[in-house]
């Protein structure tokens, strides 16, 4: 049985002033035990999709099921099966971590004794035992995210929805959360996460759907998506704007980004001398050239026509961390 089966769902918000198609047509399937990443920029429709799948928003058109249960007609049953940590779901800052876990356990139907036991298990699981009796308002951003994740695990859900779980976290906290998410997957939990970080999708997701303007524009494993571009990405850099403009006329099917031109071809390394010869014979000076296998960044650029903002920031943060 599929963990999640989404068929052509659509969400429109209608008010007196506005008619907004937040999700135009989204379909995907998630197998049990995999991490599925919904990648896209802010406003792409990722969170709206998750809100529909977690029963918090109605579906305007189309259908979706969780473990065979229809999200619209079996919403109560669906909520029993899923854990939810959304950008919109808040944490009570005036309570301690222990009190929050205990309260949530009780609400899920655990007895007082079992709630105490489960609270201790979860505090240990998310590494918050030492801070358990501090009020949540004293927690760091990373601690709050771990707490949020822990709260979504109280009832041992089969499917976990995480909406941008690491947005705003420092690289260290992000890495801790990534490890925890992978560990959950290894224990059989199906995870659907949204992210606007390419590296996060690449690192965590077994399969990825790229969402742009309410539509799924590409779907597959990271390797499949990269292979889908075909060949290698050759990047030409220019110091002089005239050279850049002339090169655009000489090289076909290029994508410009700042002072660079990119071209995707089969067997890129062997084709570089020929390109350089053409450019040189036309008086175009190239400051540097390289051929690389496509990255998810290149895939995103290819399928959407623009680069995902913020992905550069996370890369820089990761590099700083490695140094």
């Amino acid at each position, binding site marked *: 049985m599929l963990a999640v089966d989404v068929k052509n769902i659509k969400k429109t*918000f209608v008010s007196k002033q506005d008619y907004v198609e937040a999700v135009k047509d989204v379909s995907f399937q998630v197998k049990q035990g995999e991490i599925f990443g919904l990648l896209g920029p802010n406003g792409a429709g990722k969170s709206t999709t998750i809100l529909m799948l*977690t*029963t*918090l*928003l*109605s579906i305007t058109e189309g259908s979706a099921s969780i473990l065979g249960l229809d999200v619209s007609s079996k919403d*109560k049953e669906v*909520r*029993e099966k*899923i854990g*939810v940590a*959304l950008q*919109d*779901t*808040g*944490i*009570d*800052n*005036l*309570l301690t971590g222990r*009190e929050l876990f205990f*309260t949530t356990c*009780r*609400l*899920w*139907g*655990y*007895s007082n004794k*079992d709630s105490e036991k489960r609270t201790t298990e979860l505090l240990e699981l998310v590494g918050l035992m030492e801070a358990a009796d501090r*009020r949540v308002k004293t927690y760091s951003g990373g601690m709050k995210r771990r707490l949020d994740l822990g*709260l979504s695990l109280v*009832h041992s859900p089969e499917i976990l929805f995480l909406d941008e779980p690491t947005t705003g976290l420092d690289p260290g906290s992000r890495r801790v959360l990534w490890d925890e998410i992978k560990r959950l997957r290894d224990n059989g939990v199906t995870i659907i996460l949204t992210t606007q970080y390419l590296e996060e999708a690449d690192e965590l997701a077994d399969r990825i759907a790229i969402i742009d303007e309410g539509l799924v524009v590409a779907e597959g494993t990271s390797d499949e998506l990269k292979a889908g571009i075909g060949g290698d990405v050759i990047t030409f850099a220019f110091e002089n704007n005239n050279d850049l403009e002339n090169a655009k006329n000489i090289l076909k099917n290029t994508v410009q980004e700042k002072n660079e031109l990119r071209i995707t071809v089969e067997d890129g390394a062997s084709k570089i001398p020929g390109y350089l010869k053409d450019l040189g014979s036309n008086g175009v000076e190239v400051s540097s050239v390289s051929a690389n296998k496509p990255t998810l960044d290149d895939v995103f650029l290819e399928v959407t026509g623009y680069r995902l903002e913020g992905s550069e920031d996370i890369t820089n943060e990761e590099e700083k961390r490695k140094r």
Partner: protein
Amino acid sequence: MKSNRSFLVQLQILTKRMVLRVVRRPLAELPNLIISAFFLFVYDGALGGVFGGTASGTPFDFAKGNFINFILPVSIVSASLSGAASGIYLVEDIESGVFKRYQSMPISRWAIILAPMNVGALRVLLQSGLILFIGIIIGADPAVGNIGFLIVLSIAFIWGMGFAGYSVAAGVKSGSSQGAQAATFLFFPAIFLAPTFVPREALKGWLETAAAYNPTTYVIEAMRAVMVDGWELDILFRGYLSAGLFAALTLTLAVLSARKATEKA
């Protein structure tokens, strides 16, 4: 492992959680309590000398010798407005996303809505009880005996729940805690367009008309009846009826607005 998940258990857990929130912010409880106590002391200090024992035998002897008995209902009504915090508690949960977290769980929507109202009710009883206690210390002595205190407290409770319902409806409608807070401005017309300082017969012109349409008038008059005059059953009935109708109206509005808030968009 999982045991009882009944509505009442959920309501009890959510109410306990909200009580913890209130206990962790004790200063938030003070303003309304201080204002209510302030009314009691200042009005007694300013007007007690005129309308208290010295007014005996004059047309101004409406307090029948004990001005505390006469002014205490005003402070009690003021304290009962602390029920309006219910709306603020609920909207804080909506704003912080805690409301949405609970919505994503298989728990009763009504337990989520009723928990802050439960806490509002506790707040009304606690604040009204404290003001009543202060009143007793400084000389309140109901004409109907000590049962008068219970009657006053019960009317205050119903009246306070009316304000709780009003604040929940206003808070959910405005969608912000500032909106819920701003809605409590109703406090001023409720208190001051009423026979607050003198009996209704002493009011004149537009204020007399406004007071006649203000349900607070009948609530204060009912409380005063048991404190000052004795068993005036018709006045007592009007007081309970006004408080009850107000509470029924606002709680209905609260339920309707909360139902809308919990519906899926």
